């Protein structure tokens, strides 16, 4: 549930990043309130994935600051952010393909279960790793496929596994990078329902292309074009914003993706 104080869960202030002359992130500021589902949309090349990369620590910004739950995490290495409660899913499926589905989630659980300099006991026989793992798989609907090799899953199931791994360790906030990517209509609907259920428990920053999902779930939306924020506001505000319509929703309209 949302915390009683007014401190935003995530604060981004004047973030900037260049790659050899190309400006990927241009003076970007936004914040996400606790308990909010904040969507980030924008045309291809808008720098959405670069933003997530900087928030999760995969890339270091050139300038600007990022605060998470009051901590300055701007230069914090990637592996430390997870411990603070900031978890991430990947746009291009990034799993442990040669391990089983349950192994994948159990590893995510293990990351939050103390140190791993334990050299003798069989990790696959540890209930404190396997049980939470199974519970997470059940939550995303993969319980029966726990012993499958991760590479054997369909694309939709991969996205579900991604989510399960992000949820291990009970994060306070999720950075979701296009969780619907490549999903068919049925699978998308299922994912939307899952996210809707998650909304009540944690804060979410959602990068997505699927406009239907965005407008169904988001409390607030930020629109990025060429790495810069051109509008932030409620879904209604964004839909009405002329600049945004022109830059982005106009394209979506042309593709027939506009739903009232």
């Amino acid at each position: 549930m949302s915390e009683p104080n007014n401190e935003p869960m995530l604060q981004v202030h004047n973030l900037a990043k260049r790659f050899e002359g190309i400006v990927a992130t241009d003076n970007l500021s936004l914040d996400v309130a606790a308990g909010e589902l904040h969507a980030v949309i924008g045309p291809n090349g808008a720098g959405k994935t670069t933003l997530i990369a900087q928030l999760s620590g995969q890339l270091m910004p050139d300038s600007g600051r990022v605060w998470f739950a009051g901590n300055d995490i701007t230069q914090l290495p990637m592996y430390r952010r997870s411990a603070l409660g900031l978890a991430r899913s990947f746009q291009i499926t990034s799993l442990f393909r040669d391990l089983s589905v349950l192994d994948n989630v159990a590893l995510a659980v293990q990351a939050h279960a103390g140190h791993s300099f334990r050299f003798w006991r069989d990790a696959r026989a540890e209930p404190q790793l396997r049980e939470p793992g199974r519970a997470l798989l059940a939550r995303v609907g993969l319980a029966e496929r726990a012993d499958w090799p991760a590479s054997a899953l369909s694309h939709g199931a991969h996205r579900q596994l991604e989510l399960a791994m992000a949820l291990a360790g009970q994060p306070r906030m999720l950075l979701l990078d296009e969780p619907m990517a490549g999903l068919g209509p049925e699978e998308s609907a299922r994912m939307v329902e899952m996210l809707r259920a998650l909304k009540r428990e944690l804060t979410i920053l959602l990068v997505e292309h699927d406009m239907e999902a965005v407008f169904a779930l988001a409390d607030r939306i930020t629109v990025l074009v060429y790495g810069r924020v051109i509008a932030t506001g409620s879904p209604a505000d964004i839909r009405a914003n002329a600049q945004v319509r022109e830059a982005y929703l106009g394209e979506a309209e042309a593709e027939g993706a506009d739903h009232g």
Partner: protein
Amino acid sequence: MTGPLNVRNIATVALLAALVLLPVYVQLGGDRFMLTLFTRIIILALAAVSLNLILGFGGMMSFGHAAYLGIGGYAVGMLAHEGVLSGFVQWPVALGASALFALVIGALSLRTRGVYFIMITLAFAQMAYYVISGLARYGGDDGLTIYKRSEFFAPINLSNKVQFYYVCLALLYASIYLVWRLVNSRFGMVIQGSRSNDMRMRAIGFPTYRYKLVCFVIAGTLCGLAGALLANHTDFVSPGIMYWTRSGDLIIMVVLGGMASAVGPLFGAVALLLFEEFLPFVIKLVGTPMFGDAAGRASEYWQIIMGPLLLLVVLFARGGIDGLLSQMHRKVRS
């Protein structure tokens, strides 16, 4: 692979048992040379098992692993040269020196990945080779003779070939078991996860560098033990054992045997060394009736097959012998 009774497991148990019984066969009138050959195979298998820990399970393509054979060997050799013959001093020094070298090299090399990592581990190992070659006091390029083997307490006499064989075999089996437990532990899961997807591991919260470094040190230390054993076996140590192409030989053993299991490298060592030992002989034997003298000369150049053979294994039998045996089971079942 359904139940434990399959081709691969049977082959494994058969090999392990055969190795235990080998000295018995030799005592009963078999060729004494086999004992020497198999002692060497076992020691190199130990080195290969240690390499597999970082290479097969950890995905760290170290091309400098033979350096530890040299470090372990020279620890024994140098101490023996200075009059320190006790194994209780020599062997811990061998292990300690290997661990230290692995710590320093690993700390530097693990900051890089992929091709860089390969080149760097290769370069540092070669550096160790050049440094030791430069030490005239310990024989330099010519190497160092070891006049007496490592001494332990009363019943253990490493000069007794059969005893020495069993010491090596015990250490090999213990190492295989150790590696097996290691890779299935929490630590091992982190290592395997890092091999599979290092970035994801860091994203979920593991400081992978630390774990890989510890793994690297364990592997180096284990190989240092193999080095100490090898020095005792050959009663000699030379920089040649550390030359980077020897690291290549170790990698071949690991890949040939199968990287996915703790015992795979043993298959690889046995296969490679038996191949090296007997292929010229087989060529001569088979070829002489057909081609006369030419077969004899051809058998000298048997190594020419090694190269393309390796390439073929890489392209078509990546799972190594272990993989082939596992596949055989599936074929038999269906």
